[in-house]
C-alpha cells in the first residue's frame, strides 16, 4: 500500500461534482421546516427593509414638498414597525440558523467518526494521523459557516433580488431594464474566475493538511526530536511548509478579492447608465423615483456580491467536502457480510486451512498455513522478526482478511460471523500498548466498563501490576496521559495485560506482551496466569523462550511458513530450528 507522508499532497480521487453538493443538501433534509421558517423570517425582514426606501421616496416626493408633517409622522410610525419586525426576525433567524448549522455539523462529524471506526488498520497505517484528525475536526468545522449562513443567505438573497426587481418593475419598467444591463458582463467575469478559484482552494486545503500532519507528528515525536537535538532542523522544515502554505493562501485570497472590485465597478456603471436613462432617454421620471431607483440598485448589487461571496464560500467548502465524502466513501474492506450471525460462545478450537496472505500484492507474508488446535491449547509462535508471527494472530481476530484459505474458530469460518461478536471474545495484547488518557482504573476497565473495582484489582494483581499501581500518587485513580507517558513500557504492558484479562476472553493472544517486563515479574506473572489459562485457548509470541516452554505446541515460523511444530521436548529431540534457537541463548552466554 502506498503510504503518504507529511510533505506529499494526498491524491484527490474525486472531481468536482454536483453530487457532493446534493449530498450535503441531504443533511439539511430533516430541517426542512426550520429552513422554511428561517427563509420566511428573512423574507419578512427583507420586505420590511425594502419598505424603507419607499417611505423615504414618498416623503421626498409628496410629504415634504407639501409640508405635510402629520404625513411624515405616519410614515415614521410605519418605519418604526418595520424596524421592530426586522429586529425580531433577525433574532430568531440567528437562533434557528445556528441550531441548524450546528446540528448538521454535529451529524456530519458523527458520520465521519462512526465511519473511521469501521475502517481497517490499513487506512490508519497508510497516512499520517494528523491528516485524519483534521478531517474529522477542522474540515467539518469549516462547513459550519456555509451551512449556517451560506445556504439561507443564498435563498434570501435570491428572493431579495426578485423582490427588488419586482419593486423596480412596479415603479418603472424601462428604467429597470436599463439598470440590469450590467448583469451579463458580471456573469462572464464570474465564470472566468471560477476555475482559478477552484484550483486555488484545493491546493490550499492540501497544503493545510500537510502542515497539520507535520505539526501532529512533531508533537508525537517530540521526545525523539529533543534527544537528537534536531529542533532547528525541524524548525526549518516547518518554516518551509509554512511558506508553501502562505504562498497557496495568497494565491487563494487574490482570486477571492478580485471579484468584489468587479462587482462594484459594474454597479457604478449601472448607476451612471440609470442617471442618463432617467434624465435623457426615459421621459417623466420624478426625482423621488430616481432616488428610489439608485437606492434599489445599490441594494440590488448587494445580494449579487453576496452571491459572489457565497460562491467563494462554497468553493472553499467543496474542497473540504470532497475530503470528508472521500472518507465517508472509503471502502470498508473488513465488515460484516450480509446475513452474518453473531459468534456463538467460543469454545476455542482454532483452525487455519491453507491460509495465504499478503499486505502488498506479490509479496506473500504467509504461504499456505495449516494448523488445528483443540480448545484450551496453549500455542507458541517463535521465529525470526518479520517471519509472519504477528500476521498469523492478526488474521485470527480478522484485522485483515485472508486472500486464500479459511480461518475457522469452533469450525465456523470467521468471515461469516459478526465482527464485534468475534473480537469481543478475543483478548489481544498487541505489541503497541496504547493507553487512553484517564485513570489507571478506567484503562483496566476499558474493555469491560461494567466490571467492579475488585475485579479490576484482581486482574491487576494477577499480572503483578498491583504493587506499582499502589505506589503511584493516587493508586488506581492516578490520571495517566494518552499513550501512558511517564509510565515505563513495562508498566504499560502490565496495565494493558490487566485490561486484556479483565475482558475475560475465550481466546487470549499475547504478542510479545511481556517483552519489556523484567524476568522476575514475568515469572510471577506466569504463575498467576496459569490458573487463568485453563480452558482458554491462547497464542503466545515471545522471544524469551522460558515463557513458552510449557506450551502444548510450539510452531516455528520462518518466511511465512511453519517449518516445525511440536512440544518443547519433541522439538528439542528433532534437533532442528527450534533446537538451534533454544541453544543459542546459551551459546551466547558462552561466547563473548
Amino acid at each position, binding site marked *: 500500500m502506498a503510504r503518504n507522508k507529511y510533505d506529499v499532497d494526498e491524491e484527490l480521487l474525486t472531481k468536482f461534482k454536483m453530487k457532493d453538493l446534493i449530498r450535503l443538501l441531504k443533511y439539511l433534509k430533516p430541517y426542512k421546516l426550520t429552513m422554511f421558517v428561517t427563509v420566511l423570517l428573512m423574507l419578512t425582514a427583507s420586505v420590511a427593509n425594502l419598505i424603507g426606501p419607499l417611505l423615504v421616496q414618498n416623503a421626498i416626493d409628496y410629504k415634504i414638498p407639501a409640508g405635510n*408633517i402629520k404625513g411624515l409622522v405616519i410614515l415614521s410610525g410605519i418605519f418604526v414597525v418595520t424596524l421592530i419586525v426586522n429586529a425580531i426576525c433577525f433574532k430568531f433567524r440567528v437562533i434557528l440558523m445556528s441550531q441548524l448549522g450546528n446540528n448538521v455539523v454535529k451529524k456530519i462529524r458523527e458520520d465521519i467518526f462512526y465511519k473511521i471506526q469501521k475502517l481497517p488498520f490499513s487506512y490508519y497505517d497508510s497516512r499520517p494521523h494528523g491528516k485524519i484528525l483534521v478531517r474529522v475536526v477542522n474540515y467539518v468545522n469549516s462547513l459550519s459557516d456555509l451551512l449556517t449562513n451560506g445556504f439561507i443567505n443564498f435563498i434570501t438573497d435570491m428572493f431579495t433580488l426578485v423582490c427588488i426587481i419586482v419593486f423596480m418593475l412596479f415603479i418603472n419598467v424601462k428604467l429597470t431594464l436599463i439598470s440590469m444591463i450590467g448583469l451579463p458582463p458580471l456573469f462572464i467575469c464570474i465564470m472566468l474566475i471560477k476555475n482559478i478559484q477552484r484550483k486555488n482552494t484545493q491546493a490550499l486545503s492540501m497544503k493545510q493538511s500537510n502542515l497539520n500532519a507535520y505539526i501532529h507528528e512533531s508533537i508525537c515525536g517530540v521526545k525523539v526530536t529533543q534527544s537528537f537535538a534536531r529542533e532547528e532542523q525541524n524548525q526549518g522544515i516547518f518554516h518551509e511548509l509554512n511558506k508553501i502554505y502562505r504562498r497557496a493562501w495568497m494565491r487563494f485570497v487574490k482570486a477571492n478579492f478580485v471579484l468584489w472590485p468587479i462587482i*462594484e465597478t459594474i454597479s457604478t456603471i449601472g448607476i451612471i447608465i440609470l442617471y442618463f436613462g432617467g434624465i435623457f432617454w426615459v421621459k417623466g421620471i420624478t426625482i423621488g423615483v430616481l432616488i428610489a431607483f439608485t437606492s434599489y440598485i445599490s441594494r440590488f448589487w448587494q445580494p449579487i456580491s453576496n452571491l459572489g461571496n457565497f460562491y467563494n464560500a462554497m468553493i472553499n467548502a467543496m474542497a473540504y467536502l470532497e475530503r470528508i465524502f472521500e472518507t465517508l466513501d472509503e471502502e470498508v474492506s473488513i465488515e460484516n457480510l450480509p446475513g452474518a450471525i453473531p459468534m456463538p460462545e467460543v469454545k476455542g478450537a482454532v483452525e487455519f486451512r491453507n491460509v495465504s496472505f499478503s499486505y502488498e500484492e506479490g509479496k506473500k507474508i504467509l504461504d499456505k498455513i495449516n494448523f488445528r488446535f483443540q480448545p484450551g491449547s496453549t500455542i507458541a509462535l517463535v521465529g525470526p522478526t518479520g517471519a509472519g508471527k504477528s500476521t498469523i494472530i492478526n488474521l485470527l*481476530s480478522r484485522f485483515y482478511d485472508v486472500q486464500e484459505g479459511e480461518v475457522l474458530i469452533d469450525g465456523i469460518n470467521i468471515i461469516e460471523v459478526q465482527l464485534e461478536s468475534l473480537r469481543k471474545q478475543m483478548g489481544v495484547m498487541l505489541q503497541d500498548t496504547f493507553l487512553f488518557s484517564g485513570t489507571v482504573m478506567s484503562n483496566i476497565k476499558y474493555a469491560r466498563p461494567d466490571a467492579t473495582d475488585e475485579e479490576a484489582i484482581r486482574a491487576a494483581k494477577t499480572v503483578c501490576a498491583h504493587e506499582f499501581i499502589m505506589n503511584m500518587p493516587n493508586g488506581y485513580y492516578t490520571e495517566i496521559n494518552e499513550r501512558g507517558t511517564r509510565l*515505563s513500557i513495562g508498566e504499560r504492558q502490565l496495565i494493558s495485560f490487566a485490561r486484556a484479562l479483565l475482558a475475560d476472553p475465550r481466546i487470549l493472544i499475547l504478542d510479545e506482551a511481556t517483552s519489556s517486563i523484567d524476568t522476575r*515479574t514475568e515469572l510471577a506473572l506466569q504463575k498467576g496466569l496459569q490458573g487463568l489459562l485453563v480452558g482458554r485457548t491462547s497464542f503466545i509470541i515471545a522471544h524469551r523462550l522460558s515463557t513458552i516452554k510449557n506450551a502444548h505446541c510450539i510452531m516455528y515460523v520462518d518466511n511465512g511458513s511453519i517449518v516445525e511444530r511440536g512440544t518443547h521436548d519433541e522439538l528439542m529431540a528433532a534437533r532442528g530450528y527450534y533446537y538451534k534457537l533454544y541453544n543459542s541463548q546459551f551459546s551466547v552466554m558462552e561466547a*563473548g
Partner: protein
Amino acid sequence: MENVKWVWKYIRKYKLRMCIALIFVLVASALSMVTPYVSGIIIDKVIKQSHHDMLLKLCMLMLAATIIKSIIRFSYQIMFETISQGAYMKIRESMYQKLQNMDFKFFDTTRTGDIMARMTGDMDTVRHLISWVIYMVFENAAIFIFAVTLLFTINWQFTLAMLLVVPFLAWAAIRLAGDVRPTFSAIREQFSRLNSVVQENISGNRVIKAFATEYIEINKFDKENEAYRQRNMDSAKVWSKYLPIIDALAGTLSLIILIVGGILTINNKISIGELVTFNSIVWALGNPMRNFGWLINDIQRFNASADKIREYLNNESAISNIEKAAKKEITGFVEFKNVSFGYDNDEVLKNVSLKAKPGETVAIIGPTGSGKSTLVNLICRFYDCSEGEVLIDNVNVKDMDLRTLRSKVSVAMQDVFLFSDTIEGNIAYGVPDAPYESIKQAAGIADADDFISSLPEGYDTIIGERGVGLSGGQRQRIALARAILKDPSILILDDTTSSVDMETEFEIHRTLRSFYNNKTTFIIAHRISSVKNADKIIVLNGGQIIEQGTHKELLNLKGYYYNVYQSQYGDFDGLDEKEVG
C-alpha cells in the same frame, strides 16, 4: 488588551506597510463618499436646475472614483493579507519552537489533541483577526468618520441629531463584548476536548479494534460532540440577543432622516438636495454600526483563542540553557552524585551514585518501574534531578549547553517513535546530511541492513507514523541505527532490543562493543545475555542501587541478579560443560 499587545509584537515589524495600508484604507473610504456626494449634486444641479451638460463629467468622476477605490481596496486587502500571513507564520513558528523545546514533563501531562487544537483552530482565529478584523475596524471607523465629517459640513445640527444613537449603540456593544467572551472561551475549551477524543481514537485504533470497543469510543465522542454543539448554541444565544438591537439602532438612522430631516426640510432649514445627500450617506453611518456588533464578536473570539495560545507561549520549559553554558566536547565521563528524582510526589530515584569512564559499558537491570529509564533520562537532561548532581566530564549537566549535550549523547528509547518518512530519512534523523554509506553502516551495526535491503524499495521505503507496517523488532533496530549514526560520545540503549530475538540481540551488542571501545555505553535490558559482558552491572530496585559489579561478582553475591540468572538459565545446569552448536 493584553492580547492586542501580544499580537502587536508580531505586527510591529510591518509598521511601515501597515501605515501605508491604513492610508490606503482612508483614501478608499474617502473615495467611497464620492458616489453619494456626486449623486446629491446630480439631483440638485443636473435635474432640478437642468444643468444637463454636467452629467457626463459628474458620472465620469463617479466611475473614476469607483475604479480607483477598487484598485486601492484590492491593494490594501492584499497588503493586510501579506502582513497577517507574515505575522501568523511568525506566531505559528514561535509556538512550534516553544513546543519543540518544552520539557518532557509538559508532554507527559498534556494531551496531543489539546496542543493540536491550539495549533490549528485557535491559530486560525488569530489569523482572522490580523487579516480581516483589523482592517475592517479601520475601514469602518474611517468611513464612519468621513461620513460624519461630510455631514457636519452640510448641516451640523442634523448630524448631531443622527449621532444620538451612538451612546445606545456603545451600551449594546459593551454588553455584548462582556457577555459573549466567556461563551467563546467555553467553545475553545470544548473544541480542545473534542479534538483530544478524536486524536486518541485515531492513535489508539488498533487497541479499539482489538477489544471491539467502538461503541465506547462512540459514546465518548457523542458526549463531546454534543457538548461542542451546545457550547456553540450558548454563544449564538448571547449574540442573537444583542446583534438585532445593534442592527435596529443602525436602522434608526433612516428613521431620523425621515422624521427630523423631513421637518427640517419643510422648515427650509435644509434643501431637498441636502436631504438626499444625507439619505445617500446614511449607509456610511449605518453599515459601520451594523458591522460593529460582528467585529466585537470576532474580537472576543480572538481573545478567547489568544488566551489559549499565550498560555503555551508563556510556559517556561523547566529544562533550559543557563547563560554562558559550557559548549565543549564531551569525552564521556559520567557521574551520578547522590541523585534523587521524583515526578511530583512520587519518588523514583533515591540517592543514586555511580561512575562510568569512556570505553566502559554500564548495564542496568531491575524490576519494572524501578527507575531504570528515569536514571538514563537524567543524563541527557530530559528531566532535572531534584537532589544531587549529574556530571559529565566533571561538569554538571545543568551547566552545559543543552544542544551540545544532546548531540553528543544518543538515546535509543524504549518507546520507539518513527516518523512517516523513508527508512533512510528515519535513520538519518539526527544527521540529515549523512551519506548513504554511513546510513547503511549504522543499519548494519543494528542488524537492520538485511531486512531493509530485502524490502522492495529498500532504504527508500516510506514507513508510516510510529513505524506501522514494521514488526516491533524491526522498528527497534531502525531506532537503534538512528541512535548509532549520530556517533555520540555516550550511547544509551533503553531496552532497545526487547523485541529482537536473542541471537540477533547478542550479535548487535557484540558489534557495538567493537565499535564503541572509546565511548561510554549504558544498556538497560532484561536478558542476562545482553548485560553479562558489561564492565559494570547495576541492579536497581525501588529507585536504589542494590547490587553492582561484574557478572561474576554479582553471581557470587547470590542476590537479585543471581535469582534472575537462575530463572533464565536455572534449568540449564552445568552450562559450562554444555556443548553448544
